[in-house]
């Protein structure tokens, strides 16, 4: 089963993503900020990160920069944010995101990207 790490400080958003992803057959783990995400990602590999931007302690950019600096497998990262400004998109890409989506992300839309990024064929 493909494993996805959802990084978001809002429990509601984490649950929202978990519901969508688990229903689609993925294993989901959560982290409440960049630090916890680092800990989890270094402990066990994931196939994809879904990352929020604004978080306490270590934000989404920080997490991506840190994780991209590690010599580990580098799964794709989806950055999800409410800031619909291309500045943020640029920052997200620079930090190490692979696609930038704007909240609220519709379940279908999110899954479309995830399937592609996990190289899964659509049936």
């Amino acid at each position: 089963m493909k494993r996805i790490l959802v990084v978001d400080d809002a429990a509601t958003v984490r649950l929202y993503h978990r519901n969508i992803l688990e229903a689609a057959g993925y294993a989901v783990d959560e982290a409440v900020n960049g630090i916890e995400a680092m800990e989890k990602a270094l402990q066990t590999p994931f196939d994809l990160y879904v990352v929020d931007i604004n978080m306490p302690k270590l934000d989404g950019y920080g997490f991506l920069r840190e994780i991209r600096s590690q010599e580990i497998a580098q799964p794709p990262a989806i950055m999800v944010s409410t800031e619909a400004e291309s500045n943020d998109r640029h920052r997200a890409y620079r930090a190490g995101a692979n696609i930038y989506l704007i909240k609220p992300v519709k379940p279908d839309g999110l899954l479309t990207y995830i399937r592609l990024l996990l190289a899964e064929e659509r049936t």
Partner: protein
Amino acid sequence: MNPLLEQFLSEARDFLHGIAEKLMQLENDPGSTPVMNELFRLVHTLKGNSGLFEFPEMTRVLHAGEDLLDAVRDGRVGYSQELTDRLLDAMDFVNLLVDEIESNDGAIGSDHAQNALRLAESLRQLIGVTAVEVKAPVAEASQASSVHNMPELPRLAELPEQQRMALYREALAGDTLLFVEYTPEQECFFKGEDPFHQARQIPDVVWQSVLPREPWSAPAELDAYHCNLVFNALTTAAPEELYELFRYTPEQLRIVPLPPIVLALPHGDPNGGPVYGDFVTDALGRLDTGDMAGLESVARTMLELSSPSLWLSSGLRWLLLVLELEPGNRYAQRTLIESLGSLTLPVWTTPETAVEADSELVGERFSEADARAFADILQAQREILGLPDSDAWLPGRLNAAATALAACQRSAGRIEALPTLEAALAEALDSVEAAPLLAWLDAHAPLDRSATAESEAEAAPMQVRNALIDVESDNKFGRRVEDSYVGPKTLKVDQDKIDNLMGLIGEMVVAKNSLPYLASRAETQYGVRELGREIKTQYAVINRIAEEMQDAIMQVRMMPVSFVFQRFPRLVRDTSRKLAKEVNLILEGENTEADKNIVEALADPLIHIVRNSLDHGIETPEVRRAAGKPPAGRLTIRATQEADRVYIEISDDGKGIDPTIIKRKAYEKGIIDESTMERLSDQEAVNLVFAAGFSTAEVISDLSGRGVGMDVVRSAVEKVNGTVSLESELGKGTLIRLSLPLSMAVTNVMIVESDKQIFGVPMDMVVETVRVSRSAIRTIKKRQTTVLRGRIVPLLALNELLAIDAEPYANEDDELATLVVRVHEEHVGIVVDDFRETVDIILKPMAGIIGGLGGYSGSALLGDGSVLMVLNPRELV
């Protein structure tokens, strides 16, 4: 209610507490960046959460709050007290909505729209108009069309071809062509807006349409006061003009500049069928070899041969026009020729969306949406690879981009490209630059789609390799990593569930209590002594477990008093500002814990005390200065725990309570008579504030002079078996001390008997049990009394108090069983028939119609299944 919504509500409350707290902190320290950032984050996250649901009112207000805080954070707007006031108001509103959603099972009433608008506007006012103008209109317009918000292109084919062609010419000559989408607020009618008129004001409109945003609901449910329309228009007006027109509602306007080519849509009678296949081949061949003159001539010939009303003639006309006006736009020309062959409308996309769905992908494997997402991801990787190579984490970024590209290629079935991708990645990592990967991307997924499909023949051997890669990657990621999942360490549990558990444990305690009865029945009734003994042994074990369980659940129910304390910063701030006083609030011991019921019962009395203190205790700065005190008053609320009691002290350094004034007031109000007035000590006089109907304020203020006084505080505290005391020194301040039990779930009661019925009396009120000889009873002032340990104790018969028509039952020595209880610091003797044992019970408050009976504090089940009514001597006597 679904779990997601529950989670949202519970988290929203946490955020709202956090926001209020941060606002208070910000008020004390307006320049603090960490506090500001945290505050922004909380509002931002809460807004994001609300966006997952359909709570437009909530989202609107939070969005405005977020924008305002963003402006403050950036220094565009300065901090002010008004800002805090308005934000607090807004958060109160959000809190109200949260409550409503919870009680209304997930719905918000429709009557909040107005308030939401008003609040959002009051917040936005603080940002000021300048903030809106800061955004460069054109730049925003192009950003709006960012990858994920591709506009639904209007059905331009509806425009007459002639007009479109004229427009196309003009647009190429320099006129910008803008697609305008105007989405009025749903509640716009309430704001006096006229969306239709507004839409009609759009200048230089070429094409316009009005569509419902969502499917219309059934006529019966249709809300005519909600605007469900979206207005689309195509205009050649300058963006500045449009922004001027929509200056009050810029957020409702979306402007997307369109490339002129989108107008090129063939239109006509499709009956002629597509153009011949060899025309397409011929035309594409000429295009590829750059034989533009040849292309133009074959197109012209074909056009002459076809009836002008045919679809394909229209396509040819467009092709010729494009050849004339945009000879270099091979992409457009190719697309038009291909559409002639397929008789389908060419799909033009907006410029930013060079992101264009690769239509070849669409089929069994890919839906439209997949293809679009695919193009999106490719475009994103292109941007990523185009970033500067200077970042230290470049290798990680390249790796990730390559992984994303590989995954996409694989999902698209384009596995033939994978080995070259790996090679490109290796090269890129080697040279620490993105260029090799970018080159690969250009070669395999060029912006121009002419170089797509590669030879399919190579695919077969690659398939094997691809399978190998799959296996490898599966192994890598397939480790049973789920095993090491670490769950959250704290659980949030619904209060109802805890209460339910508490009730169950209460029942178990009761059931357990039936075992001793059973044991004695085994012994006495059935004559099996051994069995009785064994039951007793077993009872001891069950009893121990039950007690531990009770203890454990008590721990779960414990909550910190900060639950109550956290509302004080706001309360004190608001109140003192209203009264024009300066007050420093000091909170101590917020982490002291007590049972949930106790903490909750504490809230109202504490608020009352604090209000009193601010209203009557602490003086205005002028008065304080005159008295030689610092202008700002001090109010301390301190919680401590000693043994099984929690103490809460509320002290202020205000003017204190003047016993003389209290005495006079009490006399005037008829609470005491003249002789009492002279006899009372100062401390006793101060305690008169607890007497019913006492209010000392010289002027009745709207804060605390509502006719309820400290007597309400006292009865609320006593309800949970607490006590309240007051010390005051004139001119120095007042100290109010509440003493509360840690928990009120288990009550130790003494069982007494009267007229063959049993009643419980809480043990913490019982002073002693005595048997009073009838001869020792004297009648003083028409009341029966006796002297116990040198004190006169009034005697009251329980039968009389409960209106039971029976004489007290005396024993052989003509003594009456008397239970001495402490009521309001006075000793009272209650004459009963007999005393029984004491038991631990779970007291259940009286509910329903008997809930109004003041003389009882509740009922409990006894081990034998009978109900014990527990008396409340304070009310009874």
